[in-house]
C-alpha cells in the first residue's frame, strides 16, 4: 500500500514541474514587452524601464529566472496583481471559498440526482423512464451551460421572480467572512433571513454548474450498473433469494461505484471550467470570474498565479481520487 501511495505521489512531481514551466513561459510568450505590459498603459521612462526589469528579474539569464520563480512558488509567493497591488495568493484564497462552495453544491446536486436516476434507468432498462433519462442526459451533456444559465434566469428570476439574478447574498446583509463559505457564514452571523438569502442565490448557479456532471454521472452509473447486473455473483445473489433491493443496492451498486467514482473525480476539472462560465453569468465572486476579469484587465501575474493554483488543485484532487480508488479497489493497488 505504501509503495502504491509513494509511486502515485512521485508521479505528480513531473506534472507539477511542467505546470510551472508552462506558467513561467506564459508571461514571456505574450506578445510585446513584458515590462510595458506590467507597467500598464501609461508607459515608462527608459530608467524606470531598466529599474522595473531588474526588480522583476528580467535582466537575469532565463534559467536563473526560472529558478527564482520556482523558489518563490515554493515559498508561497506568486507575485502581486498589477491592478490591486495585492499578493496574488491572497486574492486567490479570498475568492477560492466562493468557487469551492459552488462546486461542492453542484457536485452534491449531480451525485444525489445522477446516481439514483442512473441506477433506476439500468434496472428498468429499455423502459420509458430509461429512454427519458438517457435522452435528458445526452441533452444535458450537449448543453451550452452559459445559455442554460440565461434561460433559467429568464424563467425563475424574470417570469416567476423566485430567485435573484446575481451575487452570493442580498446586499441587505453584511457580515465579516469567517470561513468564506456563505452558507456557513450567514448561519454564524445570526441575522434573520441571511441564510435563506444565501441559499436562494446559490440555487440557479448550482443547477447550471451541476448539469454536465449530472448528465455524465447518470450515464456512467447506468452503464456501470448494466455491466455489473449481468455478472454471475448478482445472479447468485438473486438465486439465493435476496430481496431485489438488497441485490441492487449492495451487491451491484457497490461494484458499479468504482468507475463512477473515477468519473466523479474527473469532473473536478470540468467544474473549474464550468465555474468560469457560471460565475460570469451570475456575477459570482469566485476565481473563475476573477480569472476572466484578470485576463481582460491584462493582469498577467494574476492569470499566471491563478492558472498555477487551479492546475495544482486539479492535480491534487486527481491524486486523491487515485488514492481513494486504490483503497476501494485492491486490484489497482496490487497491479504489477
Amino acid at each position, binding site marked *: 500500500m505504501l509503495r502504491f501511495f509513494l509511486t502515485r505521489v512521485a508521479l505528480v512531481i*513531473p*506534472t507539477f514541474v*511542467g*505546470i510551472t514551466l*508552462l506558467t513561467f513561459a*506564459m508571461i514571456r*510568450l*505574450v*506578445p510585446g514587452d513584458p515590462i510595458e505590459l506590467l507597467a500598464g498603459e501609461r508607459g515608462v521612462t527608459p530608467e524606470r524601464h531598466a529599474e522595473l526589469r531588474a526588480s522583476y528579474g528580467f535582466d537575469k539569464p532565463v534559467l536563473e529566472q526560472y529558478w527564482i520563480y520556482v523558489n518563490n512558488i515554493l515559498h508561497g509567493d506568486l507575485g502581486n496583481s498589477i491592478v490591486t497591488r495585492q499578493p496574488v495568493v491572497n486574492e486567490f484564497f479570498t475568492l477560492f471559498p466562493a468557487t469551492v462552495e459552488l462546486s461542492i453544491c453542484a457536485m452534491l446536486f449531480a451525485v444525489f440526482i445522477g446516481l439514483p436516476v442512473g441506477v433506476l434507468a439500468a434496472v428498468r432498462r429499455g423502459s420509458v423512464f430509461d429512454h427519458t433519462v438517457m435522452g435528458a442526459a*445526452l*441533452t444535458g*451533456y*450537449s*448543453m*451550452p451551460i*452559459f*445559455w*442554460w444559465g*440565461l*434561460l433559467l*434566469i*429568464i424563467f425563475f*428570476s*424574470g417570469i416567476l421572480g423566485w430567485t435573484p*439574478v446575481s451575487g452570493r447574498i442580498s446586499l441587505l446583509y453584511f457580515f465579516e467572512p469567517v470561513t468564506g463559505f456563505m452558507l456557513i457564514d450567514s448561519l454564524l452571523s445570526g441575522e434573520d433571513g441571511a441564510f435563506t438569502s444565501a441559499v436562494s442565490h446559490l440555487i440557479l448557479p448550482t443547477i447550471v454548474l451541476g448539469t454536465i456532471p449530472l448528465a455524465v454521472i447518470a450515464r456512467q452509473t447506468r452503464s456501470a450498473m448494466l455491466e455489473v447486473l449481468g455478472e454471475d455473483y448478482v445472479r447468485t445473489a438473486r438465486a439465493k433469494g435476496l430481496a431485489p433491493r438488497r441485490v441492487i443496492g449492495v451487491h451491484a451498486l457497490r461494484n458499479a461505484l468504482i468507475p463512477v467514482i473515477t468519473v466523479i473525480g474527473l469532473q473536478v*476539472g*470540468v467544474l*473549474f*471550467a*464550468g465555474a*468560469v*462560465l457560471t460565475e*460570469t*453569468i451570475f456575477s459570482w465572486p469566485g476565481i473563475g470570474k476573477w*480569472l*476572466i476579469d484578470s*485576463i*481582460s484587465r491584462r493582469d498577467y501575474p494574476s*492569470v499566471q498565479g491563478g*492558472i498555477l493554483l*487551479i*492546475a495544482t488543485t*486539479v*492535480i491534487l484532487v*486527481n491524486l486523491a481520487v487515485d488514492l481513494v480508488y486504490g483503497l476501494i479497489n485492491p486490484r489497482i493497488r496490487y497491479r504489477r
Partner: protein
Amino acid sequence: MNDTPSVAIDPVKNTASAPPKPIAEFWSYFKENRGALTGLYVFIAICLMAIFADFVAPHAPNQQYREFFLVPPFWQDGGSLQFLLGTDAVGRDIFSRLVYGARYSLIIGVIVVVLSLTLGIALGLIAAFFRGVTEISIMRMMDIMLALPSLLLAVVIVAILGPGLFNAMLAISIVYLPHLVRLTRAAAINELSKDYVTASRVSGAGPMRLMVISVLPNCMAPLIVQATLSFSSAILDAAALGFLGMGAQPPTPEWGTMLAEAREFVLRAWWVVTFPGIAILVTVLALNLLGDGLRDALDPKLKRQ
C-alpha cells in the same frame, strides 16, 4: 459522411466466407440506431442551411433595420413575418444571423478537427514508433496539458494569442490534442505487436510506410469517433469563448458571440437569448447522437450486444 468509415473496419474479422462489404456492414449497424440517424439528418440539414445561407436567409446577417429594434418573433404581439424570430437590439434579423452563424460553427468544427487530428495522429504515431525519450517527453507534455481544464487552457492560450475567431480555433485544437495523442498511441502500440506489421517490416518497409500505410488505417475506428465528438465539443467551446468575448468578435454572427451581445437583454427580450442557444444545443446534440451511433457501429466489442 458515409464512405469515410470504410477504412476503419477491422480487416481481421472480414476473413469469414463472403463477408459483407465494410460500408454495407457499417451501415447495417448504423441504421438500426434511430437516434444516430436523427442526428445524421439534422446535421445534414444544418450543413445544407449553412451552404445555401444566401438563399435561406431572408436578410443579410448584418443589415440593421433602424425602425425595428427588438421586434419579437412572429407569433407574439408586435411580431411580423418579416422577421420570423424577431430582431436584436440594433434591428438585425435573428433568423438570418442564425442561418449565417451555422457557417461559422461548421467551419470551426471542421478546422479544429482537421488541425487537432493531424497533429494528434502525428504525435501519437511518433510516440508509438520511437519509444524512449521521444515518447516520454510527448506523453508528459500531454499529461501536463490534461492537468488544466480544457476551457481554461483554451482561455489562457487565447489570452496569449489575443482574442479572435482564428486564435480561438487554434487554442481549441491545441487543447484537444492530449486525448487524440493518447488514443492514437494506444491503438498504434496495439497494432505494432501484430504479425502483419512484423511481416511488413521484414519485407523492408520504412518507418513512414509502416506508420501511415500499415498501422494508421487500423487505428482509425476510435479516432473517427473521437473526431465526431471533438467536432461537437469544438462548437460548444468556441461558443463559450465567444460568449466570454474571446472568440469571434462582434458583429460576426457566431452563435456564442450573439449570446454574449444578448446578455443584457435577458429579462427584456427573451428571444434574443433563446434562439442562438437552441441553435447551439441542436447542432451539438445532433453531433453527439451521431458520435454515439458511430461508436456503436464501429466498435467491434459492442457489436455482439
